[in-house]
Each structure stands twice: as structure tokens, then as C-alpha cells.
């Protein structure tokens, strides 16, 4: 799955409601009424999932905006994207 996430654009589910308060997002997935709080990095990733960027693009943006190690960054971003994909909160475009 990691290769696909790196290469294909992804977008947020239209069903997920979200709101950013002081730089941190709350995301509600109506499928299970679960509420997911995202930290500042998770929030930024969520905002970037607008259907125009793939995983590599997102990793590049996050790397430029947050102070983090390259290998760790890629691993953490992909892990987060995989989790969102498994929950059905994001989908691959096209």
C-alpha cells in the first residue's frame, strides 16, 4: 500500500466533518460517530488531502513546515495515511 500512497493523489471523504481550532483539527467520521483529534502535523496533512497531492507531495510539504527527520517523517506520514485509508476517511483519486 505504501507505494500507492506515495504515487497516487488522495482526498478526504466527503462524509467526514472537520473543523480546525487553534491549528488542531477535530474530525468526525459519521460512519461510526467517532471523533478523531489531530495534532498540528496531522491537521496539516488532513488539510493537504484535497485530491491534488500524493503521499510524496505531502511528505515534502510537511518536511518543509515541520522540523523532523527525513526517514521518520516518511514512515510517520505513510502510517497516518494508511490509518486514514483503513478507516475510509480518505480515498485514492482516479
Amino acid at each position: 500500500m505504501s507505494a500507492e500512497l506515495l504515487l497516487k493523489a488522495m482526498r478526504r471523504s466527503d462524509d467526514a466533518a472537520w473543523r480546525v481550532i487553534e491549528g488542531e483539527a477535530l474530525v468526525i467520521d459519521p460512519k461510526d460517530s467517532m471523533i478523531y483529534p489531530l495534532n498540528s502535523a496531522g491537521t496539516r496533512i488532513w488539510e493537504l488531502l484535497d485530491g491534488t497531492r500524493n503521499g510524496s507531495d505531502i511528505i515534502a510539504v510537511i518536511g518543509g513546515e515541520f522540523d523532523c527527520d527525513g526517514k521518520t517523517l516518511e514512515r510517520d506520514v505513510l502510517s497516518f495515511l494508511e490509518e486514514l485509508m483503513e478507516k475510509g476517511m480518505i480515498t485514492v483519486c482516479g
Partner: protein
Amino acid sequence: MKHSIILKMADTVFRISCDEVLPIAWLRKNYAAFLSTRRPDIDIPVVLDKKWEERPDPFRPPPPRWRDDAVSFETQLFDVDLDFTKRRAAVRADPDFGPVDLVKCLYSMVLMKKGGFLLHASAILDKSGAYVFFGPSGSGKTTIARLAGERTVLTDETAAIAVRGDSYNVYATPFAGEYGEIRKNADGPVKAVFLIRKGASFCHEAIGFSDAARQLSCNAMVPAIDRKIADTLLGTFERFVRKVPCRVLYFKPEEEIWDYVS
């Protein structure tokens, strides 16, 4: 229908009716403080379906269906068609359904629609207003309720938060925990909200709006929702934390808590 009861919770009056006496009798006995003679805002006829098909446990309900000012949703033991314009919630239920779940579910939906929410919390009212103490099971909500003394315990388990003017009120609910039956259907303006943690002494920490909204959302009781109501709910949490002071409170189980929080 043969049997009915009128309950007032927050500023909404519900009339629940049923051909079977047991659910109504149960509510009359256990929700005595919430009985009302006022004209109902919402009528809730409950039909017990003897041909109710058993649903799997756990039951994964389909998404609620919101349309204009109405919603339909399913649970394991009852289906609801709630129309806010017609002020009616038609319910079809398993004969063994529990009235608590139905009442709590409907109440939560009505509150959310009006910009409020149910919160896993205790709430104590004194002459100056109400304090809300929220947190997961075991955090001390009932402990604090038992320290109320002469103050009014609105709830030790489930608080109803609703808009009142340009601020918020907290209301008693009949959904009690170990504290026991709530005997007074009272309410008051929310002076402060505390995320509680047991400690060796009293101290508190400020928390930002984002963290406060996050903590509230994790302790709110959210029934069947879709994108539209979820958007409403998130807006509600943000407006609430921007209006009402929210703190983390470390406390020990002593009556000095009231001097501290005030």
C-alpha cells in the same frame, strides 16, 4: 395509544405514548422528577412490533438519513423517524426495548439540533450558577456529586448542555449513575467546566480552546449522525469552549473543592 407520559428535559417537553403499560410505568417511576403537565413539544408514539427481527449483536446501523428538518435512524432495538417540523418521532421497537436508550437517544438528537449536547459529566448547582465536571468512567464525577452538601446535584453521570440566550445552561437529566435517582429537575448557567483528575491536592491548569473542544468531544454522547449534524456539532463545541471557561482540575475528595472552584 393507551398509555402516555409527559417529560420535561432541558427546555423540551416530550410526550411518549405506547399501547403497552410497562415502558410508560417504568418511566413514570424512575423519571418522577421530570414529569410535566405542559403541552408537549414533541410527540413520540412507540409501537412495539411483535414481529421485530432480531438484529446482530453488536449491531452496525446504517447511516442516519437526514432530510430537511427530519431524520430517520436505526438501532439494535428501535427505529425512529423524527420530524422536527411536525414535532413528532414515530418509533417502532422490539417489545423488549429499554426506554432509557430511546429517551437518551431522542433527547441527544433534539439537543444537537438546537446547538447543545449530552456530556458524560456531573453538574452541581449553587446560588451563583452551575459547575460541570467531566471525564471518563472512574474520574470522580459521582465522588464530586456526593460532596455537594446543600448544593443541587443536577446529575452525576449525564449533563445536558443547551444554549440559553448568548450563553449556556446545564440541565438535570434522569440518566443517573451510582449517585442514585435525581430528585430535582433544575438547571443553571454554566460558570465553568472542569476536566477532572484525581489528585493529592487541589490545583488546576488552563487549557486552550482546541484541547478543550477535543476533550469535550471525547466525552460527549453522540448518537447517529451524518455529515450535516457532525458539522453542527463541531461548531457547537467550538462556540461552547470560546464562551465557557474550561480547566483541568486535580482534586481530592473533600468539601474544600467548592471553595477552590469558586
